[in-house]
């Protein structure tokens, strides 16, 4: 079944890439929606029987895709029937079928059939609209952001069940189901959140504990704080240098930290670390390596004088490694901060320490403590790739490498902005009623809270219902407890957990409150703010201009960060980075710091387009990258210092710039041990060209690990063998070339000129050169990444349409249908007339009927 799906989709792409843009064809087809139905079906089935029936019928239909009245339901309300008809349309549109040697239908006959089918499809989609789910449950990120904005509490939703994605995004109403387990976690979360937000009693007495770290035998030094706390203070197996503990490298016993203590109150605490470091330059690295290598050479030569020549040669070769390899252009030392509560250690942060012991830095972190037994650890986290030349010497004390220095650790808290804290005052605000008329006050509290929680005006009966919860609980409990029960009722209500949109006018536009919520969950992944809610209440979201003004305001708000994180993060597959990482022995340069940098790079690159209104076509090829020092070292781009990301201009020599050169894309489309041109080709098709090539066909097989008769079979050689099979070639002839053009990037995303066959994947002099020559689906030759980018730029309309479709899918929380094509096409036109900037596309989406209609 999958075979034809791929063939069809790919056939579609040939046309798009090679001949005509497809959107027009689809739009014109819409006008045929009202063609007479009954004989249309007969005509279509007759046509298909004539031209397709020969092969696509019988007991073994070609491509396992029968085209017979039995196999093709004309009930277009069936999703699976629509799928099949859609595939037929795509194939007919592409002129890929019937095969060239078979009898060909007349163009106008084909057009009539295509129009009829398309008309039925659009009709069915329109009528299915009311059955299309638009009632969206808040996903985990939206829940946490909404709680932050509604209550002012930072809530970690990672214990909630993961949300499934559909159409590439996890905010799809249809896919976001709800089960009793969800309700249970929502109930528990509501109580936890409100317990934290609403305080009682006097302000807890804050503590401020400072610990000076010293090198001592393990667990031999304690500091008595109070009756309960006699804290262990460890400096690890390191060197003491004045006040400072100097850590040379990571090992099980080189961590510093404090443990075996319990804070008096649960809550937010600040951890302050006094840190410094030293970063040796290249000369120091070479000098230290030279000394170590000389000693080894001399020792070996003394032992085996006959092999002196060999020892000399090895000395020279190894020294050259230290003189030339980029890994010794060290960045500042890195530290990892861990917090242990109970039995589970957790990494709070990994960060550069760019400060000297003369001018040390104080790093501050805020985290939540429980009253469980706790520990805080600081570990060395600068990774130098372990390779043949250095694995034996790099942990030796004499080897020059970034060194981390620790002086003190301080804990302070619980932190409260005021007492009672803002979260408390926002819900239980000052009011004379609080003392004089408690029930009236409770009503006020609920009224205010519910309007914000439900993101709309609230009816009296709704408030009454929650007030009843309060009244009932108040019979037994104190005011705070009773109001928490009522507020919990709000936080598990469908009006809070979902984004309900009422069906007052079928297919009509949304109400102002509903538009406000759509906008805020689109751009902020959170609830509307006061400005948006009052605009809605005042009827000021009724014209496109008013909505556009809100979009502009919202994009400038820091909360719009969530849009980059969730939209770009999912579109570019950044959440998948690290799930199947390059094998460490084959790709020693890939480390944790690089991995987090690659994820950040994807976000920052996208953000740059948003921030500086850069032409989105530059996403295909840009003369800049957005990187930090770690990535610069990996990519070989000089002159970038520091862990922060910034825009750096690059020339063509850098081979970077554009989505297809992102480390994140290149590693997630590899297999851990080798590149996968198939995955890369698929990525380009899905995410840049908007074509889903579907899943591999049954019975196709993976690429074989070795090609008979070729000693050093490259990934390309092996793939070519696979494509020799006709059932594979049909699709892979279109997918693979796109990926093969990227073969110069290895599975970790690093540039290479040869495919390595040496020890642990090392490149040897006689290893095969990378052949990144390839063909676009229309047959035009391309060479390497530059060629691919040029070819993609030549097809910019496909990219723009793909980007717009992804954006609409995310904005509307549902998958796009044929009926949405005109709205998407219009948004693309608007973006084109506005210098191709992302903001323009976002604005156009926000005022499009796809977004403003139910």
């Amino acid at each position, binding site marked *: *079944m999958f075979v034809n799906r791929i063939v069809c989709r790919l056939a579609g792409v040939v046309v798009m890439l090679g001949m005509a843009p497809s959107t027009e064809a689809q739009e014109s087809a819409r006008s045929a929606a009202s063609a007479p139905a009954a004989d249309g079906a007969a005509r279509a089935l007759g046509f298909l029987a004539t031209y397709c029936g020969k092969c696509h019928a019988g007991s073994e239909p070609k491509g396992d895709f029968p085209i017979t009245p039995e196999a093709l339901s004309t009930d277009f309300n069936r999703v699976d029937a629509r799928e099949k008809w859609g595939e037929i349309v795509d194939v007919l549109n592409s002129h890929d079928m019937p095969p060239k040697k078979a009898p060909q239908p007349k163009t106008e006959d084909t057009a009539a059939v295509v129009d009829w089918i398309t008309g039925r499809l659009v009709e069915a989609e329109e009528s299915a609209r009311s059955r299309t789910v638009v009632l969206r449950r808040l996903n985990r990120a939206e829940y946490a952001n909404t709680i932050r904005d509604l209550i002012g509490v930072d809530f970690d939703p990672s214990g909630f069940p993961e949300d499934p994605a559909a159409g590439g995004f996890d905010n799809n109403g249809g896919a976001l189901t709800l*089960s009793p387990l969800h309700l249970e976690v929502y109930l528990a979360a509501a109580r936890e959140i409100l317990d934290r937000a609403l305080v009682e009693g006097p302000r807890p007495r804050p503590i401020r504990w400072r610990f000076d770290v010293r090198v001592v035998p393990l667990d031999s030094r304690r500091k008595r704080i109070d009756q309960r706390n006699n804290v262990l203070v460890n400096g690890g197996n390191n060197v003491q240098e004045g006040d400072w503990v100097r850590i040379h490298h990571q090992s099980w016993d080189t961590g510093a930290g404090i443990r075996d203590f319990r804070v008096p109150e649960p809550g937010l605490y600040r951890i302050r670390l006094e840190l410094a470091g030293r970063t040796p330059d290249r000369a120091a690295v070479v000098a230290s390596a030279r000394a170590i290598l000389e000693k080894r050479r001399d020792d070996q030569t003394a032992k085996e004088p006959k092999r002196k020549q060999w020892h000399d040669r090895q000395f020279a070769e190894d020294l050259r490694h230290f003189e030339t390899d980029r890994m010794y252009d060290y960045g500042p030392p890195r530290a990892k901060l861990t917090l242990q509560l109970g039995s589970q250690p957790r990494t709070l942060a990994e960060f550069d320490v760019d400060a000297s012991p003369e001018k040390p830095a104080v790093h501050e972190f805020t985290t939540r403590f429980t009253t469980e037994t706790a520990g805080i650890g600081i570990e060395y986290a600068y990774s130098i790739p372990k390779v043949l030349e250095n694995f034996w010497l790099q942990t030796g004390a004499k080897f020059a490498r970034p060194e981390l220095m620790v002086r003190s650790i301080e804990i302070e808290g619980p932190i409260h902005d005021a007492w009672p804290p803002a979260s408390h005052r926002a819900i239980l605000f000052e009011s004379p009623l609080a003392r004089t008329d408690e029930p009236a006050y409770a009503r006020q509290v609920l009224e205010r809270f519910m309007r914000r929680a439900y993101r709309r005006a609230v009816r009296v009966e*709704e408030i009454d219902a929650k007030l009843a919860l309060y009244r009932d609980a108040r019979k037994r409990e104190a005011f705070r407890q009773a109001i928490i029960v009522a507020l919990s009722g709000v936080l598990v209500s469908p009006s809070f957990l979902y984004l309900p949109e009422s069906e007052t006018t079928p297919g009509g536009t949304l109400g102002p409150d509903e538009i406000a919520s759509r906008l805020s969950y689109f751009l902020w992944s959170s609830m509307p703010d006061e400005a948006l809610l009052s605009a809605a209440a005042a009827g000021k979201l009724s014209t496109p201009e008013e909505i556009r003004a809100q979009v502009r305001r919202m994009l400038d708000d820091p909360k719009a960060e969530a849009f980059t994180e969730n939209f770009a993060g999912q579109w570019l597959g950044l959440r998948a980075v690290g799930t199947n990482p390059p094998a460490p022995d084959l790709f020693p340069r890939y480390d944790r710091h690089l991995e987090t940098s690659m994820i950040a790079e994807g976000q920052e690159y996208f953000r740059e387009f948003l921030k500086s209104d850069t032409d989105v076509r530059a996403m295909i090829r840009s003369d800049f990258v957005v990187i930090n020092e770690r990535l610069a070292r990996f990519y070989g781009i000089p002159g970038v210092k520091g862990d922060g990301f910034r825009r750096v201009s690059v020339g063509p020599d850098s081979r970077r710039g554009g989505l297809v050169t992102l480390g994140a894309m290149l590693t997630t489309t590899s*297999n851990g041990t080798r590149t996968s041109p198939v995955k890369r080709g698929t990525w380009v098709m899905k995410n840049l060209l908007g074509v889903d090539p579907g899943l*591999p066909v049954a019975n196709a097989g993976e690429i074989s690990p070795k090609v008979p008769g070729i000693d050093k079979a490259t990934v390309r050689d092996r793939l070519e063998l696979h494509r020799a099979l006709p059932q594979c070639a049909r699709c892979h002839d279109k997918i693979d070339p796109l990926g093969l053009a990227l073969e110069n990037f290895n599975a970790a995303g690093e540039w290479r000129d040869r495919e390595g066959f040496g020890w*642990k994947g090392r490149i040897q002099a006689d290893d095969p050169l990378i052949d990144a020559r390839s063909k676009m689906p229309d047959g035009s030759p391309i060479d390497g990444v530059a060629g691919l980018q040029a070819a993609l730029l030549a097809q910019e309309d496909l990219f723009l349409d793909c980007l717009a479709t992804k954006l609409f899918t995310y904005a509307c929380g549902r998958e796009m249908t044929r009926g949405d094509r005109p709205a998407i096409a219009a948004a693309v036109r608007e973006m084109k007339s506005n210098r191709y900037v992302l903001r323009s596309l976002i604005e156009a989406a926000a005022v499009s009927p796809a977004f403003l209609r139910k």
Partner: protein
Amino acid sequence: MRSFASSPLSRRHVLRVAGASVALPLLDAMTRSARAADSKFRPWERSDVAQPRFLACYIPNGVNIKEWIPSETGPRYALSPTLKVLEPHRDEFTVISGIGHPNSQGGHSGADTWLTAADLQAKPGSDYANSISVDQHLAEIHGKHTRFGSLQLSDASGTGGAGHSHTLSFDLNGTPLPAENSPRRLFERLFVPDSAGDRAATLRRYAERKSILDGIAAEAKSLERKLGAGDRAKLDEYLSSVRQTEARVERLAAWVDRPKPKVPPTDLQLASKPGDAHDRPMWLDVMLELVYLAFITDTTRVITFEWSREAGGYGGAGENHHELSHHGGDAGMLSKLAAIDRFHLQRLGRFLGMLTATQEAGERMLDRTVVLYGSGMNSGLGGEHSPKNLPTILAGGRKLGIRHAGHLAFPVASHPPMANLLLTAANAAGGELPRFADASGTLAGLS
């Protein structure tokens, strides 16, 4: 975070040095790491429960079917190369070949319908209509007597998307029930007391929850009137969850005087991560240990456990299980698949061993536990992802009326629906179901 510790043996290294594409000792590498981290958990001596139980274990991507299906049939069959792993338990299970779900679409949606037998009419990645899974019928019956009606376990939390389900369980409306993948969270849910203070406070808390949920039902009704048909269906899903949660809160209130069973976390590797290739053996073991503990404490009698989601899975030593399942008949890939199959069966065998070692009312715990193990996909002789001839094992349940039959083979062309097996297994586990899905009856040959 992931560990970057290098594997004990670089396969690539071996390959390069040998300069040949030999079948690599994948299993050795995997068992080595498994052995290095062997769980210290030991089964209890005795169980006081003596109730029927049901466990369904799903493995993704099918198996190397060539090495899986025994060449002989009947009780005295010779174990196939893969099934040899279960040699110590050979009288405790039946291997069933030839069956499948007639409605299954194949591809990668096998887990979605493995226990439901539904015709999904699905567009992959979008919504679909599934139907109740067989375990949920059992949960309905047994749930009255246990703290949890059923448990859903998986290596990915949540429900997953349609056609790529992370869970095997679907409720009465066909809504997927999200799965738990963290051993620690599962342990806390099962065995760590709720900290609500004293009995009165706990009861008060439950009463409050109940009144919150009562109120919501009314609220949702008024909301429902304004919504379109699709949205109403969505809201029904919510309302049905509200009702079930209400029932559950009532049940919990009834349980307030019965504290959660005391199970020490010692010897349980609760920090094992499901998404970490290195942790894989430990993670499978600890999840199965928690299954064992949930059963022996009668915390629940119904558990479904998707070892990996379809098209996912771990191949060990950097291999990709799913890619291997598209083997195209390649001998090297098939042998790696078989190694993964043996690895999985070792985990299963260890679990069966625990149930065998525990005495229960004069029998063994295994005799009242029905264990269904298999895949909803057959990677076939050529890597086709077929829904026919599914690799399937039924183990345990002797005291529940199951008579093991060695290798029970059905002709692929005219096999009974797999729902027959589900009906047989469920009814052995106390199901009392007159029918299930498209079952034409119980499966002949097992009783």
